[in-house]
């Protein structure tokens, strides 16, 4: 087959092993889902259907769990994960303006991923760094004392 292989085949094999290991075991649900999220970057529908079938859990429950935990995502994530803190301290120090600028520059609303999958923009509540509010993180890297005029320079660093 000429189609380009987009998956990470090695990890896919380890998923198969995990499915086999948890066959008929509803208690393995979270572990299996976490492994799918890890290897695929999100929870593709096919995988959730397979999880339901293999583990013997109703699909409605699988989907319920997938939509309950913030660690799971049903849509592909961007290459760079941008988190803006909207906790109390960051909020009063101007995070809403930073959010507006980020959304404008990326052309998406918070909670979404850009069309080219370059960025996922999410809002978080208090990162425990209120002293340097407003706080922005990109792939875990911290940008303290954010203001809207710093936004375009920062996101230009990530391709």
């Amino acid at each position, binding site marked *: 087959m000429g189609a380009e292989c987009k998956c990470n085949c090695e990890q896919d094999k380890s998923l198969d092993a995990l499915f086999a290991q948890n066959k008929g075991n509803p208690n393995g649900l979270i572990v299996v889902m976490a492994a799918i999220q890890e290897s695929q970057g999100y929870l593709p*529908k096919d995988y*959730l259907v397979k999880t339901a079938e293999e583990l013997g859990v*109703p*699909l*409605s*429950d699988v*989907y*319920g769990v997938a*939509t*309950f935990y913030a660690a799971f995502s049903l849509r592909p994530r961007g290459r760079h994960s941008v988190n803006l803190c909207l906790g109390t301290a960051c909020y009063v120090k101007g995070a809403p303006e930073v959010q507006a600028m980020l959304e404008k520059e990326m052309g998406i609303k918070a909670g979404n991923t850009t069309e080219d999958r370059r960025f996922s923009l999410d809002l978080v509540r208090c990162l425990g760094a209120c002293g340097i509010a407003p706080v922005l993180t990109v792939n875990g890297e911290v940008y303290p004392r954010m203001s809207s005029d710093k936004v375009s320079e920062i996101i230009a660093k990530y391709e």
Partner: protein
Amino acid sequence: MATVSLTIDNVKVEVEQGSTILEAAKQIGVNIPTLCYMKDINAIGACRICVVEVQGARALQAACVSPVAEGMVVKTNSAAVRASRKMTLELIQSNHPQECNTCQRNTNCELQALSEAMALGDIRFVRPAQSHSKDDIDNSSPSIVRDPRKCILCRRCVAVCEKVQGVKCISTMNRGFETVVAPPFNQSLNDVNCAMCGQCSLVCPTGAIVEVDDTGKVWRALDDANKHVVVQTAPAVRVAIAEEFGMEPGTLAQASWWQPSPPRL
């Protein structure tokens, strides 16, 4: 059988070990209000309407899931209990559309009855925007209508669909205010393997899951001089009618004009 003795509202009672406070109270005729609880099917302590005061306990306890213990002293109707239940109800109502007059469950609704029994006069915390809107109503199914706006998340329907019907095509999705009882992947009831048994609508304490109301259609049929109207109670109406008309038993009667109901507004 080992028993446990305890005191409920100053009355001594002896019950089987492992019983809940709710069951023990019932034994002496003390009624503790419940919303999410369904005997043998749903005991998840979700709604907190059944709270009672247990002497020595740090917080009020949900009677439907709290086992009795030797020497326990329980008060089911103290000031603290009443205040807590009323607050819980008020919070449930804060995210509930206040349209009882036009609701199919009007005068037959557990939430309404409880609010009346507790003389809930004021709802102080009405949310500026409710979690779900009329656009979220699912009327895809020919038999069942889901209105998430009226759902109090007691999960009785989820439990009955799984444990009694063995279908489990609905479950709780999302979290917080966005929580909704629905089929997976934002599908409508007609897209999934719902058996249209109606068990969920039967156990729903509010008007969040109800049967499709076809009364208007029946009136139109009755008013149609060219139509002969036959009455047949469920289940298996179509099979029964076919048999009545001399078709092979098991045949599904289907009129030439029949088609699934269009979505209602």
